[in-house]
């Protein structure tokens, strides 16, 4: 049994009298690291956060493996690990095919909390991996990856609310390198539109549950973290956006009653990226991955003699005969797994390792979909980002991205009227149990 520590919000003795009666607010700040939040709160950039942190219990949290948003958010809202909810990354190859598909709400095989009994009516805004919008007792606008607003909104009758405020799900990425000015302006505009939609919808129903995620922070960190970390020219604009996020959080807090439960979370930490390593390039060089020649390389380009391939970020899948049309590898080929592990463990670039460690899929995942898991997951060395592109021109890939995710240092904050027990080392898989505990006073 994991050790647990008791979290006592400062005035929960008073709130304890009204447990389970209030609303639950799940407030997400995508890509916010625990370290950065503390720093920005302490330095006065995020004063509302500073006040909230004082009133709440804040702990660092470990993300999911791999440490990508689709997996982490789905794990938080379902309370399952990928073996239980079926999302192992942003990309997926359906069984017995080479279709490079992208995970979506249809991929998720476990219900999120807003579809569970006792949580509705719910207002769900911008939670990643919820596109296309699925029916619920309430209103939902999906978060990324969602390229079509009309399909991102449920019920469809709510679409005009979003259209009228100029709602966009995401900021156009190319602006980050073609026009940073417009990129920052768009981040702010989209945050304001999201908040405006929240304002309108807030009063339209007696919401029992509200999930509201700010995702601009993740985009900002990916493209401009160096300006923050290294005193770059755009540092003030970087901080301005975090101030806007803080204000949005403050507005939310101001709306809440004493008996409401507030959880603030992020999905992973962040650090500066030094290089992007193409994992499939390493496999090709080692003769473990053989592709057809051609200008367009896709999973269908894999030759039968391919033993293994990678998908973003560092997921390694054996080219198994029971999963892929041309696969010839038997499941659980231990000697092959050992050979692959040895390849990456011993791999050096400019004298430095590219992996910190290698995880076995069978150790990471359990549940009905664990058979779809990668056999191995490469955990990157500091500053290393993995790419699972099949097409490669060399070991390293060029990228406009300067910031990368980290497994550690995500955020979990809880302010609730009830005492909450949390695991010693909080993970994204513990978020839903913790929310249940905050609502009911019991940790399952």
């Amino acid at each position, binding site marked *: 049994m994991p050790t647990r520590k008791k979290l006592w919000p400062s005035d929960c003795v008073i709130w304890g009298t009204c447990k389970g009666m209030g609303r639950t607010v799940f407030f997400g700040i*995508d*890509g916010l690291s625990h370290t950065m939040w503390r720093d920005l709160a302490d330095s006065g950039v995020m004063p509302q956060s500073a006040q909230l942190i004082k009133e709440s219990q804040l702990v660092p949290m470990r993300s999911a493996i791999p440490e*990508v*948003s*689709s997996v982490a958010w789905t794990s938080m809202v379902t309370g399952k690990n990928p073996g239980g909810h079926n999302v192992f*990354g*942003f*990309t997926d190859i*359906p069984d017995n*095919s*080479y*279709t*490079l*598909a*992208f*995970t*979506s709400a*249809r*991929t998720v095989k476990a219900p999120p909390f807003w579809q569970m009994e006792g949580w509705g009516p719910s207002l769900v805004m911008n939670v*990643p991996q919820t596109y*296309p919008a699925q029916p619920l007792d309430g209103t939902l606008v999906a978060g*990324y*990856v969602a*390229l*079509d607003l009309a399909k991102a909104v449920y019920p469809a009758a709510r679409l005009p609310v979003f259209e009228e405020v100029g709602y966009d*799900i*995401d*900021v*156009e*990425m*190319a602006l980050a390198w073609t026009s940073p000015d417009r990129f920052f302006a768009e981040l702010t505009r989209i945050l304001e539109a999201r908040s405006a939609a929240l304002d309108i919808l807030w009063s339209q129903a007696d919401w029992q549950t509200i999930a509201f995620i700010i*995702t601009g922070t*993740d*985009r900002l960190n*990916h*493209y401009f973290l160096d300006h923050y970390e290294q005193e770059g020219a755009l540092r003030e604009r970087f901080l301005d956006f975090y101030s806007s996020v803080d204000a949005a959080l403050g507005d939310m807090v101001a709306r809440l009653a004493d008996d409401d439960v507030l959880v603030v979370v992020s999905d992973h930490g962040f650090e500066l990226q030094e290089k*992007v390593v193409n994992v499939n390039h390493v496999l090709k060089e080692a003769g473990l991955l053989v592709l057809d020649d051609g200008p*367009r390389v*896709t*999973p*269908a380009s894999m030759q039968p003699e391919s033993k293994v391939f990678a998908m*973003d*970020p560092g997921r390694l899948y054996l080219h198994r005969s029971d999963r892929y049309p041309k696969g010839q590898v038997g499941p659980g080929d231990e000697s092959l797994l050992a050979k692959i592990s040895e390849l990456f463990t011993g791999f050096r670039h400019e004298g430095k390792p590219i992996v910190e460690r290698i995880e076995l899929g069978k150790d990471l995942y359990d549940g009905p979909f664990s058979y779809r898991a990668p056999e191995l997951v490469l955990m990157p060395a500091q500053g290393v*980002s993995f*790419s699972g592109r099949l097409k490669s021109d060399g070991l390293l890939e060029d*990228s406009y*991205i300067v910031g*990368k995710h980290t497994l550690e240092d995500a955020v979990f904050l809880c302010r609730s009227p009830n005492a909450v027990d949390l695991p010693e080392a909080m993970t994204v898989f513990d978020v839903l149990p913790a929310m249940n505990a905050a609502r009911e006073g019991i940790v399952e």
Partner: protein
Amino acid sequence: MTDPAQHNAGKTCWNCPAVEFKGHVDFRACGQAAFSRAAEGQLVVECKRREEIGYFDPMSITYDACPEYEATEFGYLLRGMRVMILGMDGYLGWPLALKLAKLGCQVFGIDNMLRRELVAERGAQSVLPIGSMQERIESARELLGVEIDFRPIDLCDREEFFAYVEEVKPEAFVQYAEIPSAPYSMASVETATKTIYNNNIGTLNLMFAMRDYAPEASMIKLGTMGEYGSPLTGRPLFEGLFPGDAVLQHGDDEWSLGGELVPRDPVSFYHVSKVQGTFTMYESCKYWWLRGIDVMQGVVYGLHTPELMTDPSLNTRFDIDEWWGTVINRFVAQAVVGAPLTIFGSGNQIRGYITVADAMQCMIRLLASPPEPGQYEVVNQVTDVLSVRELAQTVARIGRDEFDLTPTIQRIENPRVEAEEHPYEVIHEKLEKDFGFSSQSNVEDEIRYMFKRLMEPSSRELIEASRDTLFPKTLWSGGEKTLEVVEADLDY
């Protein structure tokens, strides 16, 4: 050579009209999106037929791996593809409708019935009896077991056409709704205007309808070999549109286009309208990421396809007058009623030809393999390259030797402005190489079949009734006159 039955097996969803472009995504930046088609990142689409896949990389599914495609003798074909034929009442529109319907496509068509009207105005008629469109559709239902949806809509009537496109959301269009007559376009300012308006506004309406209601559809537009002209330099007729300073290669030769159009050199206002149509289509593909194939078709002749041969009630129209009949068809009709076969000037003008049956095979293969979004493609659709004199001699010989006729051949003064002596080399490689096309016809057999049909009493009577329209009289310089016979009774 591509295996004809498998020529498009390796095409992917990026070529498929059932797929909708959604954007580009960078998954290393948490799936951040870019919506411009020219953006970087992972290309993302959705399939309108298989929504359960969600977003996916369109290059990762090939036609042979997709359950929505079925193998046919023309390659993999999108199951139940919705094809809209513009100009379905015409010589080519109707046989294409029948063939597509037999292949399981959902066929929709429009026509303003203008061709019937214009032929009647000229005092002529189809010499194969044809029923109304409704009657022919009913026959197709009874005899072939197919359903065809037809609306009497003018392509130039934007409101009605757009509404129909929005309703059907076609996955492919075939643009046959053009006035296809060079002499008609040269007859008067009214006929020239009508040709230019009908052909160019119609095509423009099609482009805008596609942009707004069916952007993933593919289109096949009928161009004509006549757009190229017949360059006196001997430059082959390359398949495509090229920059004016391009240097093109064919075999061991290099050809510079410096000083030429690109290369287009139309030979009548009808051909001008076709060149304009080419550029309308090219620009639309460029601006709006539409996709299409411009078919530079040779002169079509003949009257049989497996579907047309089922029953006379399924006949397609067959015109033989000066304005609306094509050259081989007219020669056979002239021979049948004992009128001289008339050739212009020297008769050494060389052109490309193709039978209806081969043209239909090409069209199905092109429909089965759309270009990628934004791609404008050109194919030269001809099978035989022959001089007019050779053709007249072949028709006369077959009429005499096999049908007991006594045809004569006349050279008459040339009413057109065109080179009568010129080199002519057509490059027509793409259909065979990229689309698996293989001709199933030959000139002599097709001429024999035409004689058989046109010598039936019903057709012979109709040709006799249109006899006055067989002899050409429209001048490129304006007006009409009885053309002088330069040489009578040519040998054959």
